[in-house]
C-alpha cells in the first residue's frame, strides 16, 4: 500500500518539475491536471477498505482538480486569445534548479518532523513541501495570470497532500468545505482573469503597475 502510494507521490513530484520546466501554457495546464488526478486517486490507494466518504473525496478531487479547473483554464486561455508562451521572470533552467533544490530541501526538512508509526516511510510530507515550494516559484516567477493560477493550484495540491495525513481524523465537513472553497476561489480568479483581459487587452500581470509608491 505504502509503495504504490509513494509511487503516486513521486509522480506528483515529477510533475512539479515538468510544470517548472515547461515553456508552453497547455503543457503547464496538463501537468497541473495530471497532478490533480494523481492526487484524487491517492485516498483510494491509502485506505484498505475505503468507505463512501473517502470515495466521495476521491471522486470530487479527480473531477475538480483533474477535469473542471483545467477545462476552465483552457477555456480562459482560448477566450483571451493569449499566445501560448509562458514568459518567465525566473528562467526555466533556474526554475528547475530551484525546484530540484527545493525538493531536496523538502526531504531534508521532513526528516526533522516526527511522524506517527503508520505514516513512517511515506513521502507525503516531503511531497507536500516540495509542491508548496514549486507553487511559490511559479507564483513569483511567471508573468501571465494563467501560469500564476497554475502555480497557486500546485501550492494547493501540496496542501492537499498534507491533508491526506489527517484523512482518518478530520470530519468530512472540513474536507468538503475545503474542496468547495478551493473550487469557488479558482472560479472567481477565472472571472477576474477575464476582466483583467478586457481591461488591459492582455494577461500580462507586468502591466499591473499603476498602484505603487
Amino acid at each position, binding site marked *: 500500500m505504502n509503495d504504490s502510494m509513494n509511487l503516486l507521490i513521486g509522480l506528483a513530484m515529477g510533475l512539479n518539475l515538468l510544470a517548472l520546466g515547461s515553456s508552453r501554457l497547455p503543457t503547464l495546464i496538463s501537468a497541473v491536471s495530471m497532478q490533480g488526478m494523481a492526487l484524487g486517486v491517492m485516498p483510494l490507494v491509502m485506505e484498505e477498505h475505503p468507505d463512501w466518504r473517502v470515495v466521495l473525496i476521491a471522486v470530487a478531487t479527480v473531477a475538480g482538480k483533474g477535469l473542471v479547473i483545467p477545462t476552465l483554464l483552457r477555456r480562459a486561455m482560448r477566450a483571451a486569445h493569449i499566445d501560448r508562451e509562458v514568459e518567465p521572470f525566473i528562467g526555466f533552467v533556474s526554475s528547475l534548479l530551484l525546484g530540484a533544490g527545493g525538493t531536496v530541501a523538502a526531504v531534508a526538512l521532513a526528516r526533522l518532523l*516526527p511522524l506517527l508509526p503508520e505514516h513512517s516511510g511515506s513521502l507525503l510530507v516531503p511531497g507536500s513541501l516540495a509542491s508548496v515550494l514549486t507553487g511559490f516559484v511559479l507564483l513569483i516567477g511567471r508573468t501571465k495570470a494563467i501560469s*500564476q493560477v497554475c502555480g497557486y493550484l500546485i501550492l494547493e495540491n501540496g496542501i492537499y497532500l498534507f491533508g491526506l*495525513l489527517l484523512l482518518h481524523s478530520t470530519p468530512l465537513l472540513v474536507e468538503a468545505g*475545503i474542496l468547495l472553497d478551493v473550487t469557488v476561489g479558482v472560479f472567481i480568479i477565472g472571472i477576474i482573469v477575464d476582466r483583467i483581459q478586457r481591461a488591459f487587452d492582455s494577461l500580462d500581470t507586468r502591466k499591473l503597475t*499603476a498602484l505603487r509608491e
Partner: protein
Amino acid sequence: MKELLLIIVPLVGAAAAALWPDNRTRPWLLPVVGGIHVVLAFWLLIAPPEVAPGAWVAFDPLARAVLPAVSLLFLVCAVYGVSYLQVRSERSNRVFVPALLALLGLLSAGHQARHLGLLWIATEGVTLAAVPLLHFNGTPRAFEATWKYLLVGGTGIALSLLGSFCLGYASLHGGGQGDLTFTALTAQGAKLSRPWLLTAWVLLLVGYGTKMGLAPMHTWKPDAYGEAPGIVGAVLAGGVTTVAFTAILRVFGVVSAAGEGFIADRTLLAIGLFSMLVAALMLLGTRDFKRMLAYSSVEHMGILCIGAALGGAGLWAALFHVWANGLTKGALFMSAGNIRRAAGGRTMDEVAGMSVLTPRSVAIFVTGMFAVTALPPFGPFFSELRVLRAAFETGHGGAAAMFLACLLLAFFGLTRLVFAIVDGRPRTASRAGGQKIPETMGVILPPLALLGLSLWLGLATPTVLHDAWTAVVTQFSSAK
C-alpha cells in the same frame, strides 16, 4: 440560538438581496440586517450565554469581546451605504449588497468559530466575499487591486490551511483523537508535538497575518483600500482584520497552553513592532490619502499584536484597541470617501483646499485623524496608553520606546498629508466636482456618529465592555 442567528440572518439577507429586483431600494436591506445584527450582538454582550465546551460555534468570551464592535461598525457603514449607493446609482448593486451582507454573516461565523477547520472555512469565505466589493468601481485600477488582493490573500489563506493541518497533526501525534476544537487543543497542552506545533504557529501567523495586514504581508492593503469604496475599506479595516486577529489569538492560546508561550510572545512582539515601523516609514512617504489609511491600519494591527504579546493588561488593552481603532478608522474612511468624490483625485498633487469645498467632511476627517493618532479624549488614546503602560510594567522598555517613536513618525506622516489636502486654494478641477456632490446628512451623520462613539468609548468605557475584556484575559491566563 441567538449566536447562530448572528450568522443566519445576514446570510438570509444576502440571499434576499440577490433576489431583490429593484436597484434603488435594495440598499435598504443593509441597515435592516445590520440593525437586527446589532440588537442580537448587544443582547448577547449584556447577557452572555453558556458555552458548551465541545461547541463548534459559540458566543464565547473572545467573540463577546470583539464581535459587537464589528456589528456596530457594520450598521453605521450600512446606513452610510444607503446614501453612497444612491450617489453611485449608475452602477448596479446587485452583487455589491449581497456580498456585503454575506461578508457580515461570515465575519460572525469566523469570530465565533471554536473549531480550527470551521475558522478556516469562515476566513476563506470572508476573503472571497470581499472580492466583488473591491472591484465595485470597475476601473482598471480596481481590477489591479483585486488581482493583487486575490493573489496575496489567497496565498495567505492557503498557508493558514497548511498551518491548520500541522496543528491537527501535532494533536494527532500527541495522542489526540482528531478533535480540532480549540477547547480540546488547549486541553491537550504540553502533549502536542513540539516541532509540529511550532511549524503550525509560524504558518498560521503568516497566513492569518496576511489577512490582518501585518508587515511584510501587508502589500495588498494599500491597493485594496485605495481603490475600494470608503465603506468597504471601513469594513475591511474594522471587521476582516479583527477576525484574523481573533484567529491568531485563538491559536496563540493553544501555543501558550502547550508551554511555548515565550516563543509565541516574542514572535508576536517582533512582528507587531516591525509592522508599526514599516507603516510609519510608508506614512512619511505616501502622497495618496486613501492609501494613507491603509498604512495607518497596518500600524494599528501592529499595536494589537504588541498588546497581545504583552499578555494580561496588554491583551486587555489590545481588545480595547480593537473597538477604539475600528470605530475611529470607520469615520476616517467615510469622510475620506466624501472628500475623494468631491475632489476627483486622491493624491496631494491633485487635491488641495478641500476645507472650502467639503467643510463638514474635512472637519470630521481632521478630527478623526487626530483621534487615530491618539489625541485625548478619544478611544485610541486610552487604549494605546494602556498598551504602553503594560509594556513598562512587564519590563519591555525598549519595545515601549520604539512604539512611541513609531507613533510619532506616523503622526508626522499623517498630519503632513492631511493638511496638504485640506489647506490652500481648491484646484479648479475639484471646484466643479465639489458643487456636483453635495454633503448630505446621509454621508455626514454616520462618520460623525462613529467619532461620537470613539469619544464615548474614551471618556466612559461601559462596565459591560470592561467585564467582557477581563473575561478574555482571565480565560487566557488560566489556560497557561
